[in-house]
């Protein structure tokens, strides 16, 4: 959301058909569209008068397919260049942190999950030391325990037992 406001230096300033944003947006759309269309056939399409559960997904899938093709076809005239300057480190670490939280919450409990998430995600920001990370992890776990377990009495597993 925020990043699109500011022009960022693009690594592939060369252009060309493969260097256009629309080309790859189109390819992604086509892949998604095909998956949706494939799945929608499993749901049953119903009849014209009383449509089945797969009807709407199929229509949306076909529309997506058309738009994806359109994107690829018109990519040549587009001025948007592909932005390959992706902060892989940040994207990766934050994503893994979130997935770790989801996997750990039910199995190891909230405290472990929060500590793990903070430890995993912390290296995404430069300047975090191990000590500062541990402090913020413990503080966050304590805060969450106080708020959600103590005050609000939400039933979440705090520990693994």
């Amino acid at each position, binding site marked *: *959301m*925020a*990043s*699109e*406001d*500011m022009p960022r230096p693009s690594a592939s300033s060369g252009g060309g058909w493969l260097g256009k944003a*629309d080309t790859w*947006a189109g390819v992604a*759309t086509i892949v*998604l569209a095909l998956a*949706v269309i494939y*799945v929608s056939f499993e*749901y*049953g399409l119903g009849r014209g008068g009383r449509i*089945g*559960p797969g009807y*709407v*997904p199929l229509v*949306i899938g076909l*529309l*997506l397919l058309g*738009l*994806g093709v*359109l*994107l690829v076809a*018109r990519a040549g005239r*587009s001025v*948007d260049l592909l932005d390959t300057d992706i*902060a892989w480190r*940040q*994207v990766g670490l*934050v994503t893994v*942190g*979130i997935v770790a*939280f*989801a996997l750990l*919450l039910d199995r190891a409990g909230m405290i472990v999950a*929060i500590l793990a*998430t*903070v430890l995993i*995600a912390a290296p*995404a*920001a*430069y*300047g*975090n030391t191990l000590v500062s990370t541990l402090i*913020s992890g413990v503080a*966050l776990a304590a805060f*969450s325990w106080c708020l959600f377990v103590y005050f*609000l*009495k*939400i039933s*979440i597993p705090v520990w693994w037992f």
Partner: protein
Amino acid sequence: MELFGQLAYGFELALTPQNLLFCFLGALIGTLVGVLPGLGPVATIAMLLPITFTLPPVAALIMLAGLYYGAQYGGSTTAILVNIPGESSSVVTCLDGHAMARKGRAGAALAIAALGSFFAGTVATFIIAIFSAPMVWIASTFQSPDYFGLMIFGLIAAVVLAQGSVVRSIVMVLVGLIIGLAGTGITDGQSRFTFGIPYLSEGVSFVALAMGLFGVGEVISNLARTFGKPEVQPVSSLWPNRDEARRAVPAVLRGTAIGSILGVLPGGGALIAAFGAYVIEKKWSKRPEEFGHGAVEGVAAPEAANNAGAQTSFIPLLTLGLPSNAVMALMLAAMTIHGIVPGPKLMVERPDLFWAMIASMWIGNLMLVITCPIDGSTSQSWSSAASAPTASRTRRSTCW
């Protein structure tokens, strides 16, 4: 005039020290949970329900109502300061509110949001008092085809308010529809796109989705660009300058009108109202290119619309006994537990409850706007506390 007599009666009840205290408590707790991303009014009201059993019904409902609109204020605060919508209806506020904050105009954005909301809340309160009956009539003529029309309007609005390539906006609207299909189909009971995960049987949670798109996205882009330091400028001045005020006023008026009408519709018109108000501002503006980069109207209109909508969404509950969203369903439960049967007869059977609630809404809004400066500075510290570990807080909220 009868109306003034009734309103005076309502104020008399709402201004008793006890009711005033619960109104304040509700608004305060509401603001706090609104600021905490992911902990919305629904969860909070559900937790506070047992406490309300011991209170007289009027005080209990005044507090719960205060919690609801307090959360609307709090939700826009985080939307502006950290680009995380606390409530679904403040998603639109993120677009220009946060852009204003990045330009160092966070104070002005917060003030415009609060004053706009207050104005809208005042108008909507009077609408509930005066026009409940005709509003309900409008809502009751709304049938499925009309809802479908409104939905299409909302989708087109989404395309209009997007920046950049139209084709890509349409693609994203369709992808959104696919995500929306996930869950158990209402008409046939078939599970679609749930991949056998029971948690998806009710569909993808809006809060989780908004948190992922706005919150996580914001965290990652902040980390990548600024090495982890929050980008928001300090709240310089709390007051909008003359030019900003001049641009905000007509936008607030339009937003209030749109919100008041759409809020009455069962099924949560407040969100569509906020979107609609934003689109109309963008279309009517002489400077549409400013939208998305901190246009004052882009904050004023949707904020007014969603607050007006939040207020008028009490109308179906108070006059038909039909809750229009999850919060109203909880209010209905609270009434039922207190032995009150909400329905068309409520106004006749429990005039004390009806008018005291309406009066307290206005009082609560007034309290919120007065505490706005405090709220602004506390939420500044909230948000700076939040900015380091936002990643973890965000994820926590996606779990419930």
